């Protein structure tokens, strides 16, 4: 009984802290939006509007009210799902973003799978071979992945693998002549093309996603490797590892049957965080690969100065980050018997 109340209290505390962070996020995006030197009214009414029209719009936008009141209006709008209208498309911003999101999620999910499949074994290997040559080699490989400007690597990869070797598809999500062939149901091209039974489109999509996904995957593998190594090193110093060895388990068995289970929880957290940072890489890589996703939407609106769209994008990234943190927290409780009981 008291245990249950404790649990509820903890959950309430967490919800409260998330709410405060969310409010802070909104405040931040709101005030960044107000920093803009350009005049939003002038942008709407045009250069040769009359003074009356200008003032009318000024009042309509609520700009004559004090700042905190404007913020409250902003909160009310956001709460009702109104993030403003995009200047370029004339559609609600949130609708635009929902439309481009699947492309990015498809890319990022592909990338995180590559990153985890690459990074976790490398990190384990580096920990096991600490201070010997595999460790040093892996350190250089992962630090390089950490240090490369991904937009540049993307271009070099395009030059080499697309232009010269012709191994992969170039820009975009699929070859030009397939565009519009598949009906959009989920927005995830790989799924849609399979649903429609269009195998050509499916393979074209795979061909296009593989290169940017590998690059993003490599950069997150760098991070995953380094974290896995340090988690693993911690575990290898634990006594239960010695116990397993005394029982007659080989080093490999000890690592995969015993130590790995203990870093699983931490790895989930790390992979979740890495997934969030992929969004950052996606902004740049989508520009290079003309990938019609969230990142490209953000940057193209940056260039034309559509602050509604930009700030909503920023807000969404923040929300995704908080969500991933919560999710990893939740998985932590599910996976670790010590927090389960």
């Amino acid at each position: 009984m008291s245990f249950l109340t404790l649990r509820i209290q903890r959950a309430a505390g967490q919800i409260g802290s998330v709410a405060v962070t969310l409010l802070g996020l909104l405040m931040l995006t709101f005030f960044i939006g107000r920093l803009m030197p350009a005049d939003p009214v002038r942008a709407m009414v045009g250069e040769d509007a009359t003074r009356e029209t200008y003032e009318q719009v000024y009042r309509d936008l609520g700009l004559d009210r004090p700042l905190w009141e404007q913020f409250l209006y902003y909160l009310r709008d956001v709460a009702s799902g109104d993030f403003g209208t995009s200047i370029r498309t004339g559609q609600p911003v949130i609708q635009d973003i929902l439309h481009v999101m699947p492309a990015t999620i498809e890319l990022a999910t592909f990338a995180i799978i590559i990153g985890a499949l690459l990074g976790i074994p490398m990190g384990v290997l580096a920990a096991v071979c600490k201070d010997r040559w595999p460790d040093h080699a892996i350190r250089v490989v992962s630090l390089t992945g950490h240090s490369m400007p991904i937009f540049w690597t993307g271009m070099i990869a395009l030059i080499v693998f697309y232009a010269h070797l012709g191994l992969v598809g170039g820009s975009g999500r699929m070859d030009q002549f397939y565009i519009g062939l598949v009906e959009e149901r989920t927005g995830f091209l790989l799924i849609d093309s399979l649903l429609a039974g269009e195998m050509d489109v499916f393979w074209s999509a795979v061909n296009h996603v593989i290169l940017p996904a590998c690059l993003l995957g490599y950069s997150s593998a760098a991070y995953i490797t380094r974290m896995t190594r340090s988690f693993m090193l911690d575990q290898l110093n634990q006594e239960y590892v010695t116990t397993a060895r005394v029982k007659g388990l080989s080093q490999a068995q000890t690592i995969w049957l015993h130590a790995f289970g203990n870093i699983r929880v931490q790895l989930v957290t790390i992979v979740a965080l890495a997934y969030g940072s992929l969004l950052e890489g996606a902004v740049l890589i989508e520009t290079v690969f003309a990938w019609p996703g969230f990142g490209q939407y953000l940057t193209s609106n940056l260039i034309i100065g559509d602050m509604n769209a930009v700030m909503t994008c920023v807000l969404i990234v923040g929300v995704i980050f908080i969500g991933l943190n919560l999710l990893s927290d939740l998985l932590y409780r599910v996976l670790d018997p010590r927090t389960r009981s």
Partner: protein
Amino acid sequence: MDTLLDVSNLRIRYGGAAREAVRGVSFTLGRERLGIVGESGSGKSTVGRALLKLLPGATITADRLRFEDVDLTLLSEREMLKIRGRRMSMILQDPKFSLNPIRRVGDQVSETYLRHFRCSRREARERALAMLEAVKIRDPERVYRQYPHEVSGGMGQRIMIAMMLLADPDLVIADEPTSALDVTVRLQVLDILDNLVRNRGIGLIMISHDLNLVRNFCDRVLIMYAGQVVETLKAGDLERAEHPYTRGLLAAQPRIGGPRAPLSVLDRKPEWLEENA
């Protein structure tokens, strides 16, 4: 009496260390209970781990390191896997750390059996349950399903003993098996260990800093200081120790009903550090 273990001039140096941690240790062991006593850093635990060849990065040399019919110095890692757990095992100090926190204790116990015998999971489970009963765990079925954080220290150490004796080894090294336990359960746990070791004719090396404990539970005692054996004695002859270090250790023990003068302080003479060939 048949000799289980024959060690001569064992030397161990950790990677990057300036001095050897163990310098020329020699002893033999039959089916008996041998205590190794010394203060922390004397190299007693290092000897224990070296016998199982579980010191990554350390160099182990010895004139002789025979365990039953095998020469441990010549064994490859692959061959050691068949020795560890099956013929020689080790009970570690603190069950809080020596049990894997995220696996059920029963699975951890039966793993020893599965590793060394061709059998079904079911059979391994039966064996493990029987062994848990042998270490006087009342409700083995329930304990089998528990996680390490759900059992007490004394219970944890009994589980550890069950795990290490399950494959019926010939030699068990107990590395400070009771130091982490509550004083009240120490004797219980030692009793259980002692009974099992005696009934099954297992050779036991008990590593400890506790002179009284070793005196009561072992047949012979090895006193180590700074990586060397300074004296070997029958447990009953401990009072007649000759080496000043051993005498110092004995004098530093408090005794109920003994004189009330301040306990003497160990003095360590630099010449003991030199190697006595």
